[in-house]
């Protein structure tokens, strides 16, 4: 990764602004203009206080690498940008990634061990991760009793934060000290959002639901199904197909020949757990009905390796819809993609952002911003900084400018970002390779 | 244990083993045909015949390793070995409880209860099936009697045969190669020891005493067969002749009333053979065990046997005292004719 240090210095994207400006917090997203960033970057002095560490806990090896690595690179980008802009609050930031994949899949026991490693290292002021809600369940209690802040880019399982779903079981030691925040909208928002969209906007009345039997996939699909039925839609068939499934034909054929065929599909899961294969085989079986899913399937253009459009094929991915828990027309999104591609162009495997690169960048941004504020508030020693970061980030009053838009975190640590954006595939985009196109956004402000 | 069958021959007191019309077919080939055999208490009976005469097959039937196609073997008046009858019925029985559960569950409307109903039904069925199989594995007495009432007849297993009071050796030595001589005999004494799980976990005094005594007796047995002081040697490191003797000692571990010896002198030099023959003689006199001896080499058995059966091509061609057999032209023909051994 340090291979990229050099190029990092070269490419100071506008996001460095969001990452480390003091005024950015209040400014409107659109004000994040190149000029501003340049001045901001220039105005910051070189780090004087030495090094401070930001931990990253993700599954980075084996099958899980396809999930973890792009996510890691999202955070990497933010940190490199911050360092390029002269560090944060006088510190230079060091990213410390730990891999908790064992035999190629995330492992809770290893996740716990890594969290303990972070907690024991006084220089760690915060942790980005984890990727899987199951791992979060193991890590939150640890962070909670140690007062170490953790920001997950990908966890959407509602039970992790919301007391009404039993989240207090994870904060036994300090029930009122939030130590876990996340930038993704929870399943109980994202799932129903797509249900409404499918039923009202796309007019799908008969649905085939398939999930990947993971915490995320099944969770979001359950919430989708619940809302969809409330709206009056009929679920023709609900099937599970675990992460290792390669061949969905036995499900598809059934849907194709059944007496009342579905006029839409909802896939609860991510591309790495079969979303792309499912869509590909769906089209090959001659089913051109709309294919809809959560943010796990909106992962880059057709030329991005491992993206839904790439796997399913450009033509096949027509008529697919995905939700993203962010303001869709936020310019930083496009800028982020550009910055990422530029920053990691040397990387053979992950030169384009994955589904959770952006959120990871947002998490890192939040961490760095909080660090800056904590230092500004006078936190000198490591312990004070760690607590300061936690306190600032989890304070609902704090505002952050991220690639996902302006956000802050409520009393449970969930993002207050009220928008769900809907994306649709555009096969003509990017010179024919196809890409996701922002369609519209709905506010789910409570 | 083999179940009591009505036609069990009334064994006279002094007959310890009684084989009747024992027959074994492998596909078309008849390995053993209609062999009758009586071993008197304390007698030494030998079966001889050229290689491939079916001696060992008959022997394995008696030892409970293969089931006979027909005929019975009674030990001390109890029919141990007989042709298994309707065993297929037993494996059919295994599914009956499961089926019953399934039907009941479905009748009670589990099918209507959707997924949960099916799940519950499946679990119940699985439990029923497993429970049945557990019983079928542990084979409590009521289970076997129930089976025999259904006419299911299962022949005795080797370990049943041993606990009934027989001990055996193998033609090609089957010692526990990586265990010491002493341990081999201690395994042989398995049924003599009665320490239980509690003793094992607690390493109780009782177990220690028992083990010490067992070790002592094992050493005696080693001395008896002339392996004094070889206790801690791995069986596989023993000389060939000693391995044969060790196996014999192991067979004596369970205090058998009848010893089944399968070519105990095979591969031995004349000297060792002589020793072994003498030893067998001594076993009868000292321990009072009866012996069933299998040999393809006439000279070995002539000395010690009271009674000899001669087999060829699976059939009994002659029997009687050593002298009678030696003079029987059929026997001479069989041996010279086949030119075996």
């Amino acid at each position, binding site marked *: 990764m340090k291979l990229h240090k050099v190029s990092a210095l070269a490419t100071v994207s506008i996001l460095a602004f969001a990452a480390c400006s003091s005024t950015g917090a209040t400014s409107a997203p659109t004000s994040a203009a190149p000029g501003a960033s340049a001045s901001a970057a220039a105005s910051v002095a070189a780090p004087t206080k030495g090094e401070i560490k930001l931990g990253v806990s993700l599954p980075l090896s*084996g*099958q*899980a*690498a*396809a999930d973890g*690595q792009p996510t890691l690179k999202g955070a990497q980008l933010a940190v490199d940008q911050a360092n390029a802009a002269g560090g944060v609050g006088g510190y230079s930031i060091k990213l410390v990634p730990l891999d908790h994949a064992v035999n*190629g899949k995330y492992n809770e026991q290893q996740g716990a061990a890594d969290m303990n490693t972070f907690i024991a290292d006084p220089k760690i002021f915060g942790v980005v991760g984890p990727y899987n809600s199951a791992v979060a369940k193991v890590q939150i209690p640890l962070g909670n009793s140690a007062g170490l802040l953790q920001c997950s880019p990908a966890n959407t399982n509602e039970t992790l934060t919301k007391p009404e779903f039993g989240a207090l079981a994870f904060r036994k030691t300090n029930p009122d000290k939030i130590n876990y925040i996340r930038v993704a909208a929870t399943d109980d928002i994202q799932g129903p959002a797509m249900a409404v969209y499918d039923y009202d906007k796309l007019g799908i009345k008969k649905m085939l639901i398939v999930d990947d*039997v993971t915490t995320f996939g099944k969770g979001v699909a359950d919430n989708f199904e619940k809302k969809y039925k409330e709206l009056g839609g009929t679920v023709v*068939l*609900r*099937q*599970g*197909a*675990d992460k*290792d*499934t*390669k*061949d969905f*034909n*036995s*499900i598809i*054929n*059934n849907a*194709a*020949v059944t007496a009342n065929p579905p006029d839409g599909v909802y896939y609860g899961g991510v591309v*790495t757990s079969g979303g*792309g*294969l499912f869509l*590909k*085989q769906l089209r*090959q079986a*001659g089913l051109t009905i709309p294919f809809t899913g959560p943010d796990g399937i909106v992962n880059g253009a057709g030329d991005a*390796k*491992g993206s839904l459009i*790439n*796997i399913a*094929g450009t033509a096949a991915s027509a008529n697919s819809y995905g939700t993203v828990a962010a303001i869709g027309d936020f310019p930083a999104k496009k800028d982020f993609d550009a910055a990422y591609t530029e920053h990691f162009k040397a990387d*053979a*495997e992950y030169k384009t952002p994955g589904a959770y690169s952006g959120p990871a960048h947002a998490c890192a941004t939040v961490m760095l911003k909080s660090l800056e504020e904590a230092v500004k508030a006078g936190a000198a020693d490591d312990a004070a900084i760690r607590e300061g970061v936690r306190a600032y980030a989890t304070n609902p009053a704090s505002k952050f400018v991220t690639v996902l838009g302006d956000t802050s975190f409520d009393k449970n640590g969930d993002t207050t970002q009220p928008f769900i954006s809907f994306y649709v595939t555009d096969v003509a985009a990017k010179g024919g390779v196809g890409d996701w196109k922002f369609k519209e956004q709905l506010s789910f402000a409570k | 244990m083999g179940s009591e069958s009505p036609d069990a021959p009334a064994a006279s007191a002094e007959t310890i083993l009684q084989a009747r019309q024992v027959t074994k*077919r*492998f*596909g078309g080939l008849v390995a053993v045909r209609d062999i009758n055999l009586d071993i008197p208490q304390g007698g030494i009976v030998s079966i001889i015949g050229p290689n491939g005469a079916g001696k060992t097959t008959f022997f394995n039937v008696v030892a409970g*390793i*293969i*089931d006979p*196609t027909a005929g019975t073997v009674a030990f001390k008046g109890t029919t141990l070995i007989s*042709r*298994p009858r*309707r*065993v*297929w019925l*037993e*494996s059919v029985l*295994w599914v009956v409880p499961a089926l019953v559960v399934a039907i009941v569950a479905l009748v009670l409307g589990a099918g209507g209860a959707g997924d949960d109903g099916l799940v519950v039904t499946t679990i119940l069925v699985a439990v029923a*099936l497993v429970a049945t*199989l557990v019983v079928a594995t542990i084979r409590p007495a009521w289970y076997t009697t129930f089976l025999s009432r259904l006419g299911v007849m*299962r022949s005795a*297993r*080797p370990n049943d045969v041993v606990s009934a009071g027989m001990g055996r050796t193998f033609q090609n030595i089957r010692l526990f190669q990586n265990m010491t001589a002493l341990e081999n005999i201690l395994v042989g004494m398995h049924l003599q020891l009665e320490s239980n799980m509690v003793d094992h976990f607690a390493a109780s005094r009782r177990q220690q005493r028992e083990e010490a005594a067992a070790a002592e007796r094992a050493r005696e047995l080693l001395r008896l067969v002339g392996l004094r002081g070889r206790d801690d040697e791995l069986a596989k490191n023993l000389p060939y002749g000693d391995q044969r003797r060790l196996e014999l000692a192991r067979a004596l571990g369970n205090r058998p009333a009848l010893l089944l010896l399968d070519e105990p002198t095979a591969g031995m030099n004349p000297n060792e053979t002589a020793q072994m023959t003498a030893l067998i003689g001594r076993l009868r006199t000292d321990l009072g065990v009866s012996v069933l001896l299998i040999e393809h080499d006439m000279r070995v058995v002539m000395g010690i046997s009271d009674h000899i059966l001669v087999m060829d091509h699976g059939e009994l061609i002659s029997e009687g005292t050593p002298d009678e057999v030696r003079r029987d032209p059929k026997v001479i023909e069989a041996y010279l004719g086949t030119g075996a051994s």
Partner: protein
Amino acid sequence: MAGSAVGVTASPNPLVALRRSGAGPYLFIAALTVVMYFVLGPRQFINALTIGAIYALVALGYTMVYGIIELINFAHGDVFMVGAFVSLFVLTNILGQTGSATSLEQIVFELTVTFALTMAAIGVLGVVIERFAYRPLRNAPRLAPLITAIGVSFILQNIIQIIYGPSPINTPQVIPPTARVDIGGISVGWINIFIIVTAVVLMIGLQLFVSRTKVGRAMRSTASDREAAALMGVDINRTIAITFLIGSALAGAAGVVQGLYLGNIDFSLGFQAGLKAFTAAVLGGIGNLTGAAFGGFFIGFVEVTCGNFGYFVWAQAAVFMILIITLVFRPAGLFGHQLGERA
């Protein structure tokens, strides 16, 4: 247990008579096939055959290796995976094929080349693995080669992951996946027909090879008794190497087929496939070629049936449940000759 009744003559019982005739399994298959056709309907039926064909091809390698050196070759699934990637390499980097072929000639040509090269390469890979990971341990404790097999499977996966990356990769579907033909009013994809035919041809070929040729006889004799075979002048090492060659080559063929069928492969597809293939091999009676082939198709049918009736997640469990129950009642698999519980 049930087996100990084998060989009872003049039994009035039809069951026993049937079992002795040895026709039982075949009747069972015939019945099953017919039932399945009507349960699943033509479309799913073809689908099941296709999936089953791939499993069967992998299972054959498993069962051959097991039959000859009694090794559960856990690396076999990953050999299959490597096969898929080699075929990808051949198609894209050598033949420069992307997407589907346009003419029949092209299809025939490219597939011939791909199969030839892939099967050769993977065959060699199998031999190499045997030479360096298994042969040195032939006289070691039984489990030692099992562990090296697991190690090899790790190595293969990681190498492919380093070369091609962890995310799934598209393979050119030379036979257009949407090309279908009507057979008796049933629309069947050409690709399905191709896969099923390929598999059957390879199986028959293998069957003939093992039963007719000299090498085949050497294999069978080595499998039944290595020492005796050696005394008869059979070169054991060579025979075992050839077994690995053929078994792996079949896995390679399966790999090609996998790529053609799903048009997308990734480095982790080996283990699951291997697991199912192993199950198939045991279901049919491990060491028995017919059995392995049958087992493969059988698992295909179980999976599709589960998927068809909305219990796709239970497919794996169902497969194993059936396996366990089968073994309880037929301790040596469906085709393995029953030695009863004492053997």
